[in-house]
């Protein structure tokens, strides 16, 4: 039985959705699946992790595990890995997981595969590279464990109805590992459905021309309901909307039922974050924009005309 571990990111309500996605994949690879849940609130999600196939949860709610350098989390994980010798550790592609996995790789000297979308076996990963245009299969070698960071939404979580045993984790945190101080924190205010959960995502790009035009997307979102608003990096870099709204390689990966891109050209780095959407609608002035080749329905035209008339049409049909 080759153990496969899953790094379970913490979320305010227990576990992040990515943990359940990864557990589902881990169960397909191994019958010895464990989860790592490290940081304040670590035990809140244990039942959910168990239901999704973790037979053990290595947990500690020690504050130091979320210090900003991820050194404590990485060294604590390295000690666990040395003791229990898992074959594979699956990570999500979150900020924190990336830091922990990156440091862990340097400690263990193991391979670290990023941007994976699947693992056909314990020593093979599939990844989409070059902005998702090319799929490669990679043989993973070197000292165990193989560390694999999965793109979000690569697997559909499935509850299998187990119960997890909690194993208390000793924290490895020599004083000199905790050198960085946090002077302040802000939380991005969440309102409405999140980009990750919404059934419809409306995204605006440079073509919107300025922050006020996001109003057009908000009106449409209201008419449709259950809708979140995102943006291309061009719109974020211009300061029109906050970074939390960015979709793409360095932002969210979304897979809604319908994705509507308005004034977005569809650069590779944007496509990575949205091309898995069930249906794609694109509105752009440029008939050669790459987004049109990804779209189920591509509209070549002026968004300032198309969006308001669409909002009106949807309102007529939904009565909102």
């Amino acid at each position, binding site marked *: 039985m080759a153990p496969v571990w899953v790094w379970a990111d913490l979320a305010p309500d227990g576990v992040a959705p990515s943990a359940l996605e990864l557990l589902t994949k881990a169960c397909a690879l191994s019958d010895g699946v464990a989860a790592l849940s490290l940081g304040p609130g670590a035990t809140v999600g244990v039942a959910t992790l168990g239901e999704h196939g973790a037979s053990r949860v290595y947990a500690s709610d020690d504050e130091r595990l979320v210090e900003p350098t991820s050194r404590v989390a990485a060294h604590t994980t390295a000690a666990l890995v040395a003791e229990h010798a898992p074959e594979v550790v699956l990570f999500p592609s979150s900020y924190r997981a990336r830091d922990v996995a990156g440091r862990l790789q340097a400690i263990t000297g193991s391979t670290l595969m990023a941007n994976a979308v699947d693992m056909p076996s314990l020593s093979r990963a599939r990844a989409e590279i070059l902005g998702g245009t090319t799929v490669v299969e990679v043989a993973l070698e070197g000292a165990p464990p193989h560390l694999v960071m999965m793109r979000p939404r690569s697997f559909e979580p499935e509850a299998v109805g187990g119960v997890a045993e909690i194993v208390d984790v000793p924290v490895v945190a020599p004083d000199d590992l905790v050198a*960085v101080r946090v002077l302040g924190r802000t939380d991005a205010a969440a309102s409405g459905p999140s980009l990750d959960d919404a059934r419809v995502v409306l995204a605006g790009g440079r073509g919107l021309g300025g922050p006020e035009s996001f109003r057009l997307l908000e009106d449409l979102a209201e008419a449709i309901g259950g809708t979140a608003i995102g943006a291309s990096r061009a719109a974020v870099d211009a300061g029109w909307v906050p970074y939390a709204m960015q979709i793409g390689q360095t932002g969210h990966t979304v897979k809604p039922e319908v994705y509507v891109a308005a004034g977005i050209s569809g650069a590779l780095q944007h496509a990575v974050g949205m091309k898995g959407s069930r249906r794609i609608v694109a509105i752009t002035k440029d008939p050669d924009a790459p987004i049109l080749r990804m779209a189920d329905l591509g509209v070549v035209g002026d968004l300032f005309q198309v969006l308001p008339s669409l909002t009106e049409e949807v309102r007529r049909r939904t009565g909102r």
Partner: protein
Amino acid sequence: MNVAVLVKWVPEPEGTPRLGDDHLLVREGADGALDPGDEYGLERSLQLVERDGGEVSVVSMGPGVAVAAVQRALAMGASRGLLVTDDALRGSDTLVTARVLAAAIRSLAPVDLVVAAVESTDGYTGTLPIGLAELLEWPSVTFATSLDVVEGELRAERQTGSGTELVASPLPALVTVTTGVAEPRYPSLKGVMAAKTKPLDRPSLADLGLTDDELRPTQTVDSVGAAPAKSGGRVVEAGPETAAEIADLLAEARVI
């Protein structure tokens, strides 16, 4: 203060990259440039030493043509460059690259601050810098949207999964930055001329004290295919029917 900025040569960011018969990215002979993502951290580093004194070095691992990326960084104002080139490094994974860059940075000692981009345009693993920090046994601040040095301490605002954090770290430290930290300058003609006479080290792997064991990659790409292409899409000119057509699609998807 001595700052080392990691700069990567990448195949033309606007071009179409391709893989060769050996399943590795074609780098030699391809058009390429300094990764645009690296210019932001370089700019901010130049601003810091222009204000506080010190020197900016740029450090890179890449093929011979990567000299162009280092030259551009020198033209922007870096004082010296270091480029590691060796055939043995083709197909290096992030850990090997981190070991090479760690050795390069040690050879430049003392370095107070290493600055990298959050992720590269071509590889976008985003794990190299943090692995490097671990090899150097340094603290790190990733995903910084602002960067400063105050009273000998690094101050940075960073993006986290749930918001932002303002952090302070002792030096030496490594930081990865987003495009928010500064607006990169264009190299001036004077800068371009001056770059030609600035020191550019090209140490060998042996000079850096690296052994074959440390240079063995742990990943081999053994098959390559095109991602499944979308089929059945249609493109229309906007017209009086457009709103109804999009609304029909929304209805079909059962979201309205």
